[in-house]
């Protein structure tokens, strides 16, 4: 039995016939949802670009899932995961690149981490202080695809698409260069150092520089490069020289280059050309010397002030340099000599010859030519380049009066005869003069002593004599006084001479008076001069 109100009290529901629907509309909802889900999945799968692996030395600043990858500051992906490399030498970052990034991933594409870097010449990546580091890409030019990359430890100095030219230089040492150090052409910064590495044999440093367009066309096969690092302070036979390219290069070093203008046509640079990076501009501008002859000079004087590298000079033209300074003991003669080895570049004698002469080479076929020159008086001499610094150089010149000598060609290297230097002569003279002076002083001393002992008593006697003579003189003066008194007496007013003088004076006065009268008359009557004295007047 059912408890509750009887069924007859419950109202009848209204009939509402249902429109028969064959398909329940609600199934549209999952259909739409599936379509949307599928579309989202497909579109996100399509958005997914390639995944590559990049090896870095360290994961400093990298965050999995956060660190972005940027090409020209455009977001092209992110670092998805970071794990240690299998050999524990670095880290492997899995990079998820965005769709269409395939063309970024070629053989020579480079990745590096942009971190704040402050070096001498550049400050970069400061924005990453706030935004966190990111990975930058430089897209290469190759068409070969690649999926595994080695990240750079240093950001490249230039990007692949930067117009310009990359050059390889070879240097003895790195100097004060660093990556990013400027490259100057006529003191204008035209590029920078891109990389450097020790050469395989460890004997030189290979420096890669990048010269920006349009300056790269000034680099030719004849260009010379030199270190413009810091201050070039040179103390040599030419005195003290201070030279610097710019304040920046003073701080961080740099490279300068120049191209000789006399090149007929700029020779194109072979792709594997390596330029020599010279120590200084002076060295860079030297003509390359292909021939060198060694000679030995033996000086019998001090070589203080002579250094290896000091110039060998022929009448002002540097034709060589001092290679080495040795000492030699000859046990037979028990003498110590100082052989100085010099290198002479014979081309420097010939390269400036005009006309049909060979452009470069030796003057003579063999050493006999030099031997003839020696017979004609060619000698080497030490000369002082600067009295201030005492630097010496070797001068070659002709001394026809020099004692005869000859070149022994059998000896290697042959010994070139020397002659005492002018300074040495001067020195000897000065020393001699000093000796003479000393002797003179001694003589003078003796003289003074003799004066003191022998002459002084005589002088005293002379003084007594002189005093006697003075007394005589006083007496003579008294006599003279008397003579003057008598002269005065003879001119007194009552003397006969004075009377006559008075008369003469009076006569002269009268004459003057009559002359005045005549003059008065003539003034009043000038005609009297022609006509004579008139009767009226008479």
């Amino acid at each position, binding site marked *: 039995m059912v408890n509750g109100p009887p*069924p007859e009290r419950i109202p009848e529901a209204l009939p509402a016939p249902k429109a028969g629907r064959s398909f329940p509309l609600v*199934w549209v909802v999952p259909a739409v949802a*599936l379509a949307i889900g599928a579309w989202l*999945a497909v579109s996100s799968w399509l958005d997914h670009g390639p995944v590559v692996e990049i090896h870095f030395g360290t994961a400093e600043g990298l965050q999995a899932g956060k660190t972005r990858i940027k090409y020209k500051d455009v977001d092209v992906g992110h670092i998805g995961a970071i794990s240690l490399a299998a050999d524990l030498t670095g880290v492997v970052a899995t990079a998820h690149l965005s769709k269409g990034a395939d063309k970024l991933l070629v053989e020579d594409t480079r990745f590096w981490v942009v971190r704040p870097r402050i070096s001498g010449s550049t400050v970069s990546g400061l924005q990453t202080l706030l935004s966190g580091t990111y990975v930058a890409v430089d897209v290469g030019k190759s068409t070969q695809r690649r999926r595994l990359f080695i990240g750079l430890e240093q950001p490249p100095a230039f990007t692949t698409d930067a117009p310009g030219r990359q050059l390889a230089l070879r240097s003895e040492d790195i100097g004060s260069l660093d990556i990013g150090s400027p490259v100057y052409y006529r003191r204008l910064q035209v590029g920078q150092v891109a990389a450097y590495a020790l050469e395989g044999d460890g004997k030189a440093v290979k420096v890669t520089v990048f010269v920006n367009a349009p300056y790269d066309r000034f680099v030719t096969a004849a260009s010379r490069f030199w270190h413009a690092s810091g201050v070039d302070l040179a103390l040599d036979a030419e005195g003290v020289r201070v030279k610097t390219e710019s304040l920046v290069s003073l701080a961080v070093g740099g490279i300068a280059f120049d191209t000789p203008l006399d090149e007929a046509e700029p020779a194109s640079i072979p792709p594997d050309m390596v330029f020599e990076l010279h120590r200084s501009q002076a060295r860079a501008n030297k003509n390359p010397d292909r021939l060198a002859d060694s000679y030995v000079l033996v000086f019998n004087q001090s070589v203080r002030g002579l250094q290896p590298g000091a110039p060998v000079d022929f009448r002002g033209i540097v034709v060589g340099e001092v290679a080495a300074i040795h000492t030699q003991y000859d046990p037979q003669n028990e003498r110590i000599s100082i052989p100085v080895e010099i290198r002479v570049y014979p081309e420097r004698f010939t390269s400036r010859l005009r006309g049909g002469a060979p452009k470069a080479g030796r003057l003579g076929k063999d050493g006999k030519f030099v031997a003839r020159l020696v017979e004609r008086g060619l000698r080497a001499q030490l000369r002082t380049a600067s009295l201030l610094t005492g630097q010496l150089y070797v001068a070659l010149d002709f001394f026809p009066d020099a004692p005869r000598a000859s070149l022994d060609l059998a000896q290697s290297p042959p010994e070139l005869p020397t002659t005492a230097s002018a300074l040495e002569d001067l020195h000897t003279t000065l020393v001699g003069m000093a000796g003479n002076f000393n002797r003179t002083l001694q003589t003078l001393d003796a003289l003074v002593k003799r004066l003191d002992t022998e002459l002084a008593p005589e002088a005293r006697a002379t003084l007594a004599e002189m005093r006697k003579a003075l007394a005589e003189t006083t007496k003579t003066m008294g006599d003279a006084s008397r003579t003057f008194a008598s002269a005065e007496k003879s001119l007194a007013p009552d003397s006969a001479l004075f009377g006559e003088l008075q008369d003469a004076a009076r006569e002269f006065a009268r004459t003057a008076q009559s002359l005045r009268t005549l003059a008065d008359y003539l003034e009043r009557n000038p005609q009297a001069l022609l006509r004579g004295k008139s009767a009226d007047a008479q």
Partner: protein
Amino acid sequence: MNATAAELGLLACGTCGLLSRAPAAPGAACPRCHARLAFRKPGSIGHCWAYLVAAMALYVPANTLPIMHTSSLFGSSEDTILSGVLFLWESGSWVLALIVFLASIVIPLVKIIALAVLAASVQLGWRARRGERARLYRLVESIGRWSMLDIFVVALLVALVQLTALAAVRAGPAAPAFGAVVVLTMAAAQSFDPRLIWDGERPAA
């Protein structure tokens, strides 16, 4: 002894609650408020399954695609729900991470599974554990709206952080998907008729 309204030929109006006798012809309306009446929600299981399938289809992109793009002066980032949870967890906000994880990942999943179990149990005519299933249904219905937490956060951020030059937050493709999942699970729960759980119950002797 208990009998169901359906067994007695009685209809209860879901809108105004009036009880009425079923007419002979199929299809009925409430004599008081004219709402459509049925012994059981018509097509309840079918609707439930339809919504569940849709919710499942969208649950995957909701959790794998980024829900939020953040771009600022210092770079941009995309966050999925899970990466946000991980970020919160790593930065030490464990409680917050747990709340977001539960509300955004666990609850929608639990809802979908629970409703699927309920719908399947009714379809297969399970007789065991009717009481537990009824409790499960009540639980699913009550926690439904909590899941909108993520959408609230994203909507707020998108509206507030619009300093065009400095920073901008955009909703990612996962946001509408996630919202749809929540709405669809709620619709599924709504369309499920819990009375079906008890149908076929033999009266206790």
